[in-house]
């Protein structure tokens, strides 16, 4: 299976996927950690994939999205953005709206 196939299969199997450095429990980069905090705060379930464990994935995801940095957030297979974009969207309420529009359930109210 090529790395592109691996990525596509991951994106098909989970609605929200975060390519990150470290794991949701132990982020190993401040930017990845910020996205984890935001996703946890709005209460969306997601799959975190640690690119540090897989150099092929680390390079592959950058090529796949034509985006040079990690973290990268995907919703229903679509690239949403990196740390800055996710944070701006969260602060503007756009991230919550995007997830809602895509039919993804949030576990806790955004005000919690």
């Amino acid at each position: 299976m090529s790395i592109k196939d691996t990525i596509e299969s991951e994106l098909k199997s989970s609605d929200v996927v975060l390519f990150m450095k470290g794991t949701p429990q132990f982020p190993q980069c401040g930017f990845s950690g910020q996205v984890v905090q935001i996703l946890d705060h709005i209460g969306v379930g997601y799959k975190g994939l640690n690119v540090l464990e897989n150099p092929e994935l680390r390079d592959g995801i950058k090529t796949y999205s034509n985006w040079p940095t990690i973290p990268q957030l995907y919703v229903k297979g679509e690239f949403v953005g990196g740390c800055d974009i996710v944070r701006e969207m969260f602060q503007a309420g756009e991230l919550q709206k995007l997830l809602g529009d895509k039919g993804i359930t949030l576990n806790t109210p955004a005000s919690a």
Partner: protein
Amino acid sequence: MGVKSLAMSVKDSISQKLNEAFAPESLDVADESYLHEGHAGHRPGGETHFRIHIVSRAFEGKSRVERHRMINTLLAAELAGPIHALAIRATVPGEPGS
């Protein structure tokens, strides 16, 4: 600050490229490498972690992802080389946070 090398710094190179490409109304390029001492990607001398805030009409009608891609493409050489991390805020004059 110490003695600067005669070669253009990464920060100056970033600023020059952004100024030429986007004719920004305002541009702030900050070297935040000192915040990441001891962290992955940091090198002595800094110039590894940057934060850009750019306000330009060139971003009118572009999505956030498109704006970042315009900047990432322009700075591809730096991103492939000296830059370890680049935080970007790209807005159009009048937008919130401009």
